[in-house]
């Protein structure tokens, strides 16, 4: 996902803040956090628009670069 050139360019263009919650070590703090996006299992990808009040986009469990690009576009639109 994060080696796709289009995605990388988009992330750069939109100045996306990337946050990674690595739960390899099964931390309670992380396990308690992601259920608020309505998920019970990893991986969970959440894209939040720049407008703090706009709803976040929760990505499906499995998605490709196309879906990711679409979601980023949507987030950009919601930001305006």
């Amino acid at each position, binding site marked *: 996902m994060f080696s796709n050139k289009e995605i990388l360019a988009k992330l750069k263009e939109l100045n996306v*803040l990337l946050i*990674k919650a*690595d739960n390899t070590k099964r*931390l309670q*703090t992380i396990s308690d956090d992601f259920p608020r996006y309505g998920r019970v299992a990893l991986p969970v990808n959440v894209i939040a628009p720049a407008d703090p009040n706009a709803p976040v986009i929760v990505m499906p469990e499995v998605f490709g670069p196309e879906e990711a690009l679409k979601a980023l576009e949507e987030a950009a639109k919601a930001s305006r």
Partner: protein
Amino acid sequence: MHRALFFFFILSTQTVLGQFSLGEKETTAKVTPEYSAVEPGDSFKVAFTLNHAEHFHSYFKNAGVVGSPPSVTWELPDGLRAGKLLFPQPAAIRTMVGGVDATLYGYDGEATFVVKIEASEDLKVGSEYEIKGSFDWQECDDKSCLMGSHDFSFKVIAREESLPIKANENFFEVASTALPQDGSAWGALATEKEGKISLEIIFPEGIEIGEPVYFFSTDQQIDSQAPQEEGTLNKEGHYVMTLQRNQGTKGLAIDAGEVGESIKGLFTFSDGFGSSSIEISALLPSGATSGSGTTGEALSAFVPATAADRKAGLEVYDVNVLPEVVDPGGSKEKEVTFFSSLWLVFLGGLILNLMPCVFPVLGLKIMGFVAQAGEDEKKIKIHGMVFGLGLLITMWILAAVIISLKLNWGEQLSEPVFLGTMIIVFFLMGLNLFGLFEFGSKMTSVGGELQSKKGYSGSFFSGVLTTLVATPCSGPFLGAVMAFALSQENRSIQFAVFTVFGLGIASPYVILSLFPALIKKLPRPGAWMETFKQVMAFFVFATVVFFMKGYLKIVGEDHFNIFLFALCLIGLGVYLYGRYGTPTMAKTKRLVTGYGLAGLMTFGGLAWAYSTAKPPKQGLAWHEWYPGIMEISRPKGRIIWLDYTADW
């Protein structure tokens, strides 16, 4: 013997790794029990010490910002009960949270947290109780946060009389000075007006309140981000300071504190000797204005501080009952002294004599001395000594060459290149010990000529050549010694390493020439030597694995994967050399496959490995998640991609 050699390798690897600090310095945790034996009904303390990595801090029970304080998860046997975690005096640390200036309440440097363990009356005297658990904390610098965890376990024995661990006494004395002091003689009162809280502190006689003074709120009613001003003494001689109510700080995701009936916190001040702290709970009358005459009612009850309550006169000390503290944080680092490591280098030299290409020569050489000297024992001894001298001088020359090489190149060899080279050297050494390939077989004949010289000069050169002649075996050994020597900073130590290694090789010759009768006692050369060699190979591969761990950390996963394939290619190359590069092969096969193809693969592999011997490529700038990061980040008006993931 195997063990010794294994330690020798591990030692040299540790020393090499120790030289190049791998990654960043990490925060370490240590667990220290106060008692080794406890009397039923008594209590003792357990200290948890955090040594923070540079720029990292952990949190006070009120972090001031979004953050979690350390905590302990206990696994206690029946009859033992742990109290709550006591926090030492925190500091108000200026930092950045999510790119915003912030003040947090927490710790940097070294901080010791204490828990009191109570032993019930039902403990069985003479029984051992195992205390286990994990100490967890969150640590952050101005950019990122980590979760740290430290598993511990130690044992305490129930006895007629409690036994403090003498060695930890000072430590606990110092640790307790950082904890809140006994506040039973103190009082406090709070009044509030328009978000400003006036805190009036009544302190016992003989105490002086000196700057710096700070009130660390523990109930989040006081604004952690507002600077606190110096207080004054009122006409009753009470210390009065004004604080801001916490109305919340949106940019830092700090919520407004719940309004309570009292203001709780840690009052810290300088008592003339150092910083002191008292836990305070000041009643806050809801009617805003309160008269000053309501002393009895308004003065709050104070949380009694945990004063040292160790029974007086318990100065018994029993070394045999020191509890075992399991500390994976690496408390063994300092145990290997320089002298014990030299001893292992000596053993390494000694063991070299057991290698198949050296061992058969050992007996023959001594027999040679005997033959030359006839029955003259004195001459045999001189031959032995001269032989040893030749060996030592060779070592010194070797040392001089290597040290000068290090002077010229050492600084240019980057960390991953050096470590990668070490892995390849040890890898080749292992393959060599397995018998996959050998090198330097021609040198044996060169040596033979020189050694055939008679007299003392013959013995001398025989000594010179013993190591070099035996390159098929000694080469890898020398590699290990070189690695060890190179890892030493001091040049005289590097010299000493080679000297001791030489002495190790020479010692059996010297001893046998002193006592020629012992030759008969030597085991016969035979198949056992081949087994010995191959078993050694596994120890060498263990060393390779050990190095790889560190190498992976430096170069990152992508480069490391390529390195592994390069290693396979190098292995195939030297295999082809071993298989087809021998003089018994037909000339074309030898030249094409044994030299050409083998060389191509080996050097190709080396080049490949070299090209990836550097820190990982810069990828995307991921920020590490910590609790509350979304709340802090979203108001900044950037699109955020939050990825919850795991490596499984």
